[in-house]
C-alpha cells in the first residue's frame, strides 16, 4: 500500500507540464497529424489506450503516481486546463481544416495543436481510471455518474478516432447524367460508389418554404432508387447519408444543378451510443437523491 498520496499541486504541475510538453513537441514535430489515425490505426490506438488504462488501474496500488491518475486531484486540474485551452480556441479565429498558417503555438488550428490534444488525452485517461474504479467498487449511488462517464468517454474516443475515417464530400448533380464523384473540403475529387442524377426541383412556398430535389441514385450493382430530398430530410444509402445543400438560386426551380452533401461516418454508431448514455446519465442525475 502506498502511503504517499499526490496532491492537487502535482495535478496542476502535470496538467501545465503537458501544455509545455505539447508546445515543445510542436516546435520539433509540427502539428498533430490526425490523418495518421485512419483505419486501422485508430482502432489499434483505441484498443491500446484502453488496455494501457486497465494496466495502470490494475497496478495502481504499487505506485502513488498510478493511484493519482484516477483521483480528483488529477481530474480537476486536467479539466480546468482543458477548459482554458478550449477558451483560447473560442477566442482565436480558427483556420479551416487543411489550411496552414504561421502560428507559433498552433492555437489557430487548435484541433491539431499538441497541448490541446495532450490535455484531452490526459483527461480521457483519468476518465477511464474513474470508470474502472466505479465499476470495481460498485455503489448504486454512483451509477448515474458511471453511466455519464462511460458515455462521455465513448463520445470522446469514438469521435476523435472516428474523425479521420469520416468523409464529408460535396457533389454537384445535374439533369443530364449521373455523377459518380464528389469533392472534399480541400477541393480534392473522390470517386464515390453512388451515381446521382437530378430529375426535378421544386420550391414550395406555402405553408412554409420548402426546397425539394427529385433525384435518382444508382449503386455499382445497377440498383436504382428514386427519391425526394429536402432540407432536414437526408437519404441514407450504402453507408452514405445524402443531404440537399444548395441549388442555383438565380434559376429558381428551373435550376440545372443541385449541390448535395455526402457524409460517411463509420464510427457514428459508437458516438451515438455514447450520446445516449450521456443523456441517460444526465436524466438520472435529475432524479437521484444525492443526499
Amino acid at each position: 500500500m502506498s502511503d504517499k498520496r499526490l496532491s492537487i499541486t502535482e495535478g496542476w504541475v502535470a496538467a501545465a507540464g503537458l501544455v509545455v510538453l505539447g508546445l515543445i513537441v510542436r516546435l520539433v514535430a509540427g502539428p498533430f497529424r490526425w490523418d495518421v489515425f485512419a483505419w486501422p490505426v485508430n482502432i489499434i490506438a483505441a484498443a491500446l489506450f484502453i488496455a494501457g488504462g486497465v494496466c495502470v488501474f490494475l497496478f495502481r496500488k504499487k505506485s502513488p503516481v498510478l493511484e493519482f491518475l484516477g483521483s480528483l486531484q488529477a481530474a480537476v486540474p486536467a479539466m480546468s486546463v482543458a477548459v482554458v485551452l478550449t477558451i483560447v480556441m473560442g477566442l482565436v479565429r480558427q483556420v479551416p481544416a487543411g489550411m496552414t498558417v504561421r502560428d507559433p503555438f498552433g492555437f489557430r488550428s487548435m484541433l491539431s495543436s499538441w497541448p490541446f490534444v495532450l490535455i484531452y488525452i490526459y483527461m480521457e485517461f483519468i476518465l477511464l481510471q474513474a470508470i474502472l474504479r466505479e465499476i470495481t467498487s460498485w455503489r448504486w449511488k454512483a451509477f448515474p455518474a458511471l453511466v455519464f462517464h462511460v458515455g462521455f468517454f465513448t463520445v470522446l474516443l469514438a469521435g476523435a478516432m472516428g474523425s479521420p475515417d469520416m468523409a464529408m464530400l460535396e457533389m454537384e448533380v445535374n439533369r443530364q447524367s449521373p455523377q459518380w464523384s464528389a469533392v472534399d473540403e480541400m477541393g480534392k475529387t473522390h470517386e464515390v460508389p453512388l451515381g446521382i442524377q437530378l430529375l426535378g426541383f421544386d420550391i414550395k412556398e406555402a405553408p412554409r418554404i420548402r426546397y425539394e430535389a427529385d433525384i435518382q441514385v444508382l449503386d455499382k450493382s445497377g440498383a436504382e432508387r428514386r427519391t425526394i430530398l429536402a432540407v432536414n430530410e437526408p437519404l441514407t444509402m450504402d453507408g452514405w447519408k445524402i443531404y440537399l445543400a444548395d441549388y442555383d438560386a438565380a434559376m429558381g426551380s428551373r435550376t440545372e444543378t443541385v449541390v448535395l452533401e455526402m457524409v460517411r461516418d463509420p464510427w457514428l454508431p459508437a458516438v451515438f451510443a455514447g450520446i445516449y448514455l450521456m443523456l441517460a446519465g444526465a436524466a438520472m442525475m435529475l432524479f437521484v437523491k444525492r443526499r
Partner: protein
Amino acid sequence: MFWNFFPYFAIASVLLWVAGAFFAWKSRPRAAISLTAAGLLVFFAYMLWMWIALERPPMRTQGETRLWYSFFLPLAGVLVYSRRHYKWVLSFSTLMAAVYICVNLFKPEIHSKTLMPALQSPWFAPHVIVYMFAYAILGAAFLMALYLLIFKRKSKPSAEDMDTCDDLVYTGLAFLTFGMLMGALWAKEAWGHYWAWDPKETWALITWMCYLTYIHFRRLSPKNTGAALWILIASFACLQMCWWGINYLPSAKSTSVHVY
C-alpha cells in the same frame, strides 16, 4: 409589430413578480408563490399569443430567446423559493428577469414571419427551450453565488446554502447536457455532422465543462467554498459568451452558423 404589445404584458408581469418578492421578504410564502405564478401566467400568455400569431415558435431571434429567459428565471426562482424559502431569491430573479425585459424594451426587433428552412425541424423548439431553462437555473446559481460572495461575505456559506448551489448546478448541468446533445443529434440530421467546432458549439462545450469542473471541485475540496463560488461566476461568464457574446466576437461573427 407584435412587440408593441409587449410593454403592457411585461409591466403587468413585473409588477406581479415585485409583489411576490415583497411577500417573500415578509415571510408570506403562499402570497409570494401565488403572485409570482400569476406573473408567470401573464408573461406566458404573451409568448403563447406570439407563437400563434407568428405561426412559429418565438425563438429565432435574440429578443425572442430573451423572452424565454425572462420567463424561466422567475420560474427557477419560485422553484428554489418553494423548496428553501430564501427571502431574497424572488427579488433577485425578478430583478434579473426585469433586466432582460428592459433589454427587449429598448432594443425592439423586427421579425419576419417565416422560419429559415434549416430551422424547420422538430428539434428546434426543444433544443432552445431546454437551453433557456438551463440558462435560467444556472442564472439562479449565479445569483446565489453573488449573494454569498457579496452580501454574506462576512460569514462562511452554510452547508444548506452550498447544497442549494450544488442542486442548481446539477439540475442546470443536466439540462445543458440535454440541450447540447440535442443540438448534436439535430446537427447530424441537418448538416451531416454532430460536432463541427462552430464557435457556438465550442463555447457550449466550454460552459458545460466549466460546470462539470464545479461539480468535481466541490467533491474534491468541499470546504473551499470561496473558490467554488468564483468558479460559478466564471462559468456564468462563459455561459453569457456562448449565448450572445459570440455575436460580438470578431473571431466568431463571420464564421458561425449560430450567429443571429
